[in-house]
């Protein structure tokens, strides 16, 4: 076995470790910002593998399109929608369907999530780990979830009878 073959194997293993490790960490981390950064690392590893496959043009395109695209994604979505320094990790924990792969992550926040401000008055004592529940006694339209009312009645948009918000299951107080 010549030295160049050994070097190629070492390079291949290192790059695949970067690509696989980056995407695995993207799945395991509890922060959307870090998830985006790990995904960029994974794409860089993939671009290195394209170089190894002697597809130089594709490697450069991979870096420009995907890594640049992830940069835009982080800037626009994460910074715009989610408070990066705030309770983002708790938000992601609330959003997990099952415990999920992230439950085994070292950066998983422990304990019950802090109750968000807008739902502080409505969270049930025993359901602190669930998604923030709709306020008690709120009625909503089955077709227009933005319609909220304190009492039963007709939806102003479609005329349907309003139903209790909790019965729709969108508040997370019901089982999946």
């Amino acid at each position, binding site marked *: *076995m010549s030295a*160049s*073959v050994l070097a*190629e*194997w070492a390079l*291949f293993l290192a790059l*695949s470790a970067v*690509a*696989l490790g980056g*995407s*695995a960490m*993207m*799945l395991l981390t509890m922060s*959307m910002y870090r*998830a*985006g950064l790990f*995904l960029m690392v*994974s*794409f860089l590893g*993939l671009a290195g*593998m*394209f170089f*190894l*496959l*002697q*597809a130089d*043009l*594709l490697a450069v*395109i*991979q870096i420009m*399109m*995907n890594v640049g*695209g*992830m940069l*835009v*994604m982080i800037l*626009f*979505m*994460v910074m*715009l*929608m989610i408070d990066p320094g705030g309770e983002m990790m708790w938000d*992601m924990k609330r*959003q*997990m*369907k*099952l415990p*999920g*792969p*992230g439950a085994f992550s070292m950066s998983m926040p422990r304990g019950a999530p802090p109750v968000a401000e807008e739902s502080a008055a409505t969270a049930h004592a025993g359901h602190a780990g669930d*998604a923030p529940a709709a306020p008690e006694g709120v009625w909503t339209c089955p*077709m227009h*979830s*933005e319609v909220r009312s304190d009492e039963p009645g007709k939806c102003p948009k479609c005329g349907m009878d309003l139903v209790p918000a909790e019965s729709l299951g*969108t508040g997370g107080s019901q089982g999946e």
Partner: protein
Amino acid sequence: MSGPGLEAYLAVGALLFGIGVAAVLSQRGAIMVMMGIEIMMNAAVLNLVAFWRFVAPDAFDGQLFVIVLVTVAAVELAAGLGLLLLIYRQRGTQNIDRLAEMKG
């Protein structure tokens, strides 16, 4: 013994695809789902490049195919981001379980 062959690259591509599927299935945030889709697309691209290199290195069809695929991925990202931004401004949420009006 020679350098890493087709099977090694296909194994990495399969693992990447599996991670992407896990991300799509386990996350509720729409952004995380899109990230999982990106991982799956890149796994497919890796397979294409590996097949081009080891099966038909003389023809450039494989590389052209990859360029088309990367363009499609970028367009999908742009369209998805635009839709998500609009949905978030209207509803204040990006949780895909709350966007189920079409479920009937």
